[in-house]
């Protein structure tokens, strides 16, 4: 039983949980979103700042379990500084891993520390925890891009 548990609570996850990266809300940002996991109440407020097609900053404030906290930390570590397209690609890869019920082989080149979440995919109730901040990131990025589009088309 402890073995099963260890596959969920990888050392990497517990490390990110204890020492989360990039935590706190920062300026500047184009979009701020607030996402909730309705069943358990976990919450994240997340801001995205894009500049020149690159994810310049992702800042967040969150309350929740080890999985959701660690996952926000890993997210920011992975996407900050990446071109938006690549960040969205990483998002897709992570989501695929999480929803794969443990049958998807994690790609360390893309996901780095994120591969530690492979074990979470086997716990359906925890998948939502791992995805909370990722969904918020996707939402905020989409809002930022849509707003930029709007501006352009109004200007054009």
């Amino acid at each position, binding site marked *: 039983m402890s073995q099963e548990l260890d596959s969920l609570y990888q050392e990497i996850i517990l490390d990110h949980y204890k020492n989360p990266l990039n935590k706190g809300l920062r300026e500047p940002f184009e979009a701020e979103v607030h996402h909730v996991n*309705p069943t358990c109440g976990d919450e994240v407020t997340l801001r995205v700042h894009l500049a020149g097609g690159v994810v310049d900053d992702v800042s967040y404030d969150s309350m929740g379990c080890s999985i959701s906290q660690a996952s926000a930390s890993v997210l920011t570590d992975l996407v900050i500084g990446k071109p938006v397209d690549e960040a969205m690609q990483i998002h897709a890869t992570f989501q695929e891993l999480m929803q794969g019920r443990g049958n998807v082989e994690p790609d360390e080149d893309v996901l780095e520390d994120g591969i530690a979440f492979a074990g979470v995919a086997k716990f359906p109730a925890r998948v939502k925890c791992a995805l909370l901040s990722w969904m918020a990131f996707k939402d905020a990025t989409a809002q930022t891009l849509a707003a930029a589009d709007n501006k352009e088309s109004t200007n054009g």
Partner: protein
Amino acid sequence: MDGLLPELEVIRKDFPILERELAGGMPLVYLDSANTSQKPQVVIDTMVDHLERHNANVARAMHQLGAESSEAFENARDKVAAFINAPTRDEIIFTKNASEALNLVANTLAWARGPLEIGEGDEVVITEMEHHSNIVPWQLLTERKGATLRWFGLTDDGQLDLSNIDSLITEKTKVVSLTWVSNMLGTINPVEAIARRAHEVGAIVVVDASQAVPQMAVDVQASGADLLAFTGHKVVGPTGIGVLWGRREILDQLPPFLGGGEMIETVAMERSTYAGIPHKFEAGTPPIVEAVGLGAAVDYLGHVGMDAIRAHEHAITAYALDGLATVPGLTVLGPIDASLRGGAISFEIDGVHPHDVAQVLDSRGVAVRAGHHCAKPAHKRFGVQASTRASSYLYTTPAEIDALVEGLEYTRSYFKLG
């Protein structure tokens, strides 16, 4: 006889109640399936297994039983979505029965703001052959909102009178709600054509498929419906569960119905926000073991094949119509061409009240329904107060139809009619 299910005797063995002996040692001849269907062993066993091994609340519970129960419950949603070809599982809302599904729509429309809002001058169109569950909600809605309820009339042979469709469904029409298959007359209505007209004027189309889903392959995307309701207990599933399917675009616009449980996003003293579909409309602990049973039921029907079931019903209905035609003084209400109808056949017999017909049949083990079948306006249209209804299903045999016809002859002699 052409069209009968090839393995009818095997299918009958799946339904334990069909072995029942009634008073006086009479075998059961169950011809009341439009009222409720019987349940195959696999549905019962699946429910028992869930209760004995996997019972837990769903969504909220993270432990192993909770995960098993949630998975079984949500799998049932997938199965139902596939069964009616819904574009996404999120559009499948579990209710307690078809009546709740229809009321959910009428009730949330009463509180809707924006394009779906209904008020004075607006019209809702239903038909004279509706079940009360598709009448009363619209009466309550139109009364409460000062809107007007209008009705499709019926032709003498029990079909919808479509001659005035263009003056009935107009720019004022906000909702057209109709039954796909009548539970009294058996009539199959041209839902798609009516939906086309309704959509021309921007009305939404609600389809009561309570009698359609049990009897024929239903494809909600091809149907023309925007919202569609049916009930578990008529598709060999348990009571306590019904289904509302709706296009996401419409469901998203409707305000919440019942509040509490998993229908929320967050609750605060100042104000609450609501979950997305389907959960937004599923307040409180859902019918879990009932959904699991319904999943097994649609699996069962899918395995037999809905086209095969439709062919079987058609063959039995044609055979029954022929048999009933031999009974003196008997008049069938509704189409007498089996290809225009489903398997519920209502009739009257000169000189014997439907109650008395049903009673005599019951003494011979033949179970039919007598009364208004929750379709009073349709009975009134045909100048009768009540009728007797025989309704078949996938387990019905020609021999059972013979027992019905013999029973009716006996009824006539018992009441000393010519």
